[in-house]
């Protein structure tokens, strides 16, 4: 089975994230960058499928600046076999639709893909739309928000979990599956994995290499424009409740006031 995992490098959720003052895009230099946590789980799913199906290969695909190679190397050190990195100045500021279009072109450079895996949303943009858009553009079944994933012969089955409930979905391969943060616990890269990662093939593509129209990507092609942004206000002191025997009801009243209960 040929499995492709779409991975993204995002700012570490523990660091303070900022928008750059010029074009209101994410200031990637201001923060530590890591492989997105949910994408790590998608990689883990791919590796588990590979281990259960002899002769499988796991390819990671990433779109992002040069330093996204660190995130790619992490996926390779976990055990993925090879990578394709779309790296071009012109993709800066691309929105979800442009990202999906570009990823589809990159996927087109790979042959015989049976399963495309992705995290259901990236912790920076959080649009949560790219996997479904990729499936749509490829004309493949889209199975999103997977909490469990199994492949049996040519059939993929997922247990889809959202706030609306639980659904069991089945589709014929090839298909696109996005996983949620509960699907598994990703493995740590091992020492051998780390040492091997550097030697694994990484193909770097420009827009032209992948056959992507420059007019489909970048800030100017984005369907929405950010006109203004402000940092979130610092946390205020909050409200102190003195307990004079009626602490419980005061807290309840506060929660009702906040429309929390």
């Amino acid at each position, binding site marked *: 089975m040929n499995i492709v995992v779409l991975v993204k490098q995002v700012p570490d959720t523990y660091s303070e994230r900022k928008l750059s003052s010029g074009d209101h895009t994410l200031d990637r230099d201001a923060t530590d960058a890591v492989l997105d946590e949910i994408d790590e789980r998608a990689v883990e799913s791919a590796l588990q499928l590979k281990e259960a199906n002899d002769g499988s290969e796991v390819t990671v695909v990433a779109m992002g600046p040069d330093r996204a190679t660190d995130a790619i190397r992490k996926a390779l050190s976990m055990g993925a076999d090879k990578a394709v990195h779309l790296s071009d100045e012109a993709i800066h500021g691309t929105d979800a639709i442009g990202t999906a279009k570009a990823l589809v072109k990159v996927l087109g450079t790979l042959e015989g893909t049976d399963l495309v895996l992705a995290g259901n949303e990236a912790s920076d943009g959080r649009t949560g739309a790219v996997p479904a858009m990729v499936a749509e553009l490829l004309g493949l079944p889209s199975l999103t928000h997977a909490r469990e994933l199994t492949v049996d012969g040519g059939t993929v089955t997922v247990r889809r979990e959202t706030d609306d409930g639980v659904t069991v979905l089945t589709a014929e391969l090839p298909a696109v599956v996005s996983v949620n943060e509960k699907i598994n616990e990703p493995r740590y*890269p091992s020492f051998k994995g780390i040492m091997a990662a550097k030697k694994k093939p990484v193909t770097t593509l420009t827009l032209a290499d992948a056959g992507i129209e420059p007019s489909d990507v970048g800030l100017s092609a984005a369907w929405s424009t950010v006109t203004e942004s402000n940092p979130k206000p610092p946390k205020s002191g909050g409200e102190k409740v003195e307990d004079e025997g009626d602490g419980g009801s005061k807290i309840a009243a506060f929660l009702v006031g906040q429309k929390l209960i």
Partner: protein
Amino acid sequence: MDFTESDEHRDLRAAVGAIAAPFGGAYYAEHARAGTECTELWHALGDAGFAGVNVPEEYGGGGGGLVELALVCEEIAAQGAPILLLLVTHAISAEVLVEYGTDAQRKEWLPGLASGRRKVVFAITEPGAGSNTHKLTTRARRVGDEWVVTGEKYYISGVDEAEALLLVARTGDEGQLSLFLVPTDAPGLQKSVLPVDVMLPEKQFTLHFDEVRLPASALVGEEGQGFRQVFHGLNPERITGAALCVGIARYALSRAARYAGEREVWGKPIGTHQGVAHPLAKAKIETELAALMTRKAAWLHQHGHPAGEAANMAKYGAAEAALAACDAAIQTHGGNGVAQEFGLLPYWGLARLLRIAPVNREMVLNFVAQHSLGLPRSY
């Protein structure tokens, strides 16, 4: 000259840090206080191949060297989980067995060391011979095709956790030093806990060897070559000891910097006062200097260059930096500096101990005075 760290080493640091972080200071301090082994952390490190980074691949290890082992020691310590015993099990025992062990000894012990599941500790110190190894008296006599050991060792760490110990004893008419692998349950080997007031996950032991019989196959390397062979493990012990100290210092300083940035006594964070900030800044500088020398020493050893001077200097600098960092961190925390909840004293105790062991500060200064400066020797 190039000071950029390779991708592999950056990834190694991040991966070890990620494994140790969920354990962290709370886990370590609890085990140090109770004097119990950090089993889960040993296993986690073993499973990801980080305990055995310096064990060859054919024995289930990572095939790396001392540079990588030192990074592992530094990073676990930087997350608050400095496992002292790695200095003997992996820096001494594994290095010596890889270099001088017989095929059978390597096959028996290296895979377990690599997986973090089995331990071989190290016994050289005796009541009458600490800094001065010329005074060692423990003897192994050859009787038929066996060795018979008599003598006493003390301050031997982790004997209860280990299945074997690498023993330094005198052999032959000349009384040259030789190395032996001794099962910790060997008949005639009496082990008693030597209580220490430093909080450590590892217990220390006094060992009495009363006619302990070992098969001929227990000899490691060549008879009478123990001195040279032990030296192959002592530099790694000093270098990993230094790395552990660098990690301890980083941990103490990060805790102190956070506290000094948050705690307000006079309406602004206490870190604003230079009386608080400068000791931390000074310790930070000393830590970075020690880290540089530690990396140099590890690199020299790994590339087969003489590493004695650098290893000693790294050990000195790192122990002093760790102690200064812990002391400043405790002072920064005021009364909380000694509170169990803040768990800083176990690190101070460990850093204080590392000024004495595996080689004490004065013996390092002797080495530098004599070998680096060409001064006459006082002993």
